[in-house]
């Protein structure tokens, strides 16, 4: 089971710009490494990370093998209403993981 860590403030003032941090456990095998026997280790990476707020997309990242293992992402958003952030990670070999976080706007 993949482990996701999402860090979002539980409360914020209306109109504030807040930081969102996400961390997903994943090997991010780049597909360019060889075993000692000379075989290529097949690629296994996360290719896309999406963040939606109340159903509409606010941030999306396309990842490539040059992203380090256990991809960490931090980005910003303006909050204007209370709601729920939904995160989705999609990768090779049918990898899908989701997480969510609620925020109360005062």
């Amino acid at each position, binding site marked *: 089971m993949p482990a996701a860590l999402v860090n979002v403030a539980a409360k914020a003032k209306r109109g504030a*710009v807040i930081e969102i941090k996400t961390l997903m456990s994943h090997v991010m095998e*780049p597909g*360019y*490494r*060889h*075993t*000692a026997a*000379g075989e290529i*280790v097949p690629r296994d990476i996360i290719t896309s990370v999406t963040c939606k*707020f109340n159903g509409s*997309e*606010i*941030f*999306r*990242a*396309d*990842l*490539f*093998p*040059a*992203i*380090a*293992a256990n*991809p*960490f*992402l*931090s*980005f*910003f*958003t*303006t909050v*204007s209403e209370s709601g729920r952030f939904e995160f989705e990670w999609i990768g090779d070999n049918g990898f899908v993981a989701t997480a969510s976080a609620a925020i109360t706007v005062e």
Partner: protein
Amino acid sequence: MESMFAQRHISRRHLLQLAGTAAAMPALPLITVRPAQATPAMLASAIRNLVGEAKVNVGKIQLDIPPLVENGNTVPMTVSVDHPMTPEAHVKSIHVFNEKNPQPNVANFHLTPSAGRAQVTTRIRLADTQKVVAIARLSDGTFWSASVDVIVTLAACTEEMP
């Protein structure tokens, strides 16, 4: 200076690999194949794919990476664009490229005006001492870039599996 550094780096790695291979399986031919590497030309064509015929201006965007990296497997990187984030004028996307990893793309970040601040942080891999380039696409269709030269002492991506 840079080429000398690279040369020493390669030969030391080859030597170690050769020694390892020879010790483990003496039947194998003593040749190691250097993995395919992106070239500055691939970097240029990846950027061309993004911007088309548009002019890429220098400025507005800032790329923060340590100039000297000990371990290329995880390199903290922050890109930020000094630009308002309003529906009329905002940063649509930020694209990061490198010169010498096996492929030129690092990441694409797609932003919306609601982001409030055009800044993204992540951790990347660098397979060699090289240049990293970030390009921002603004809502008015212009492109802005920044590049940083990074010295890497332990390369990522292409080492042998233990």
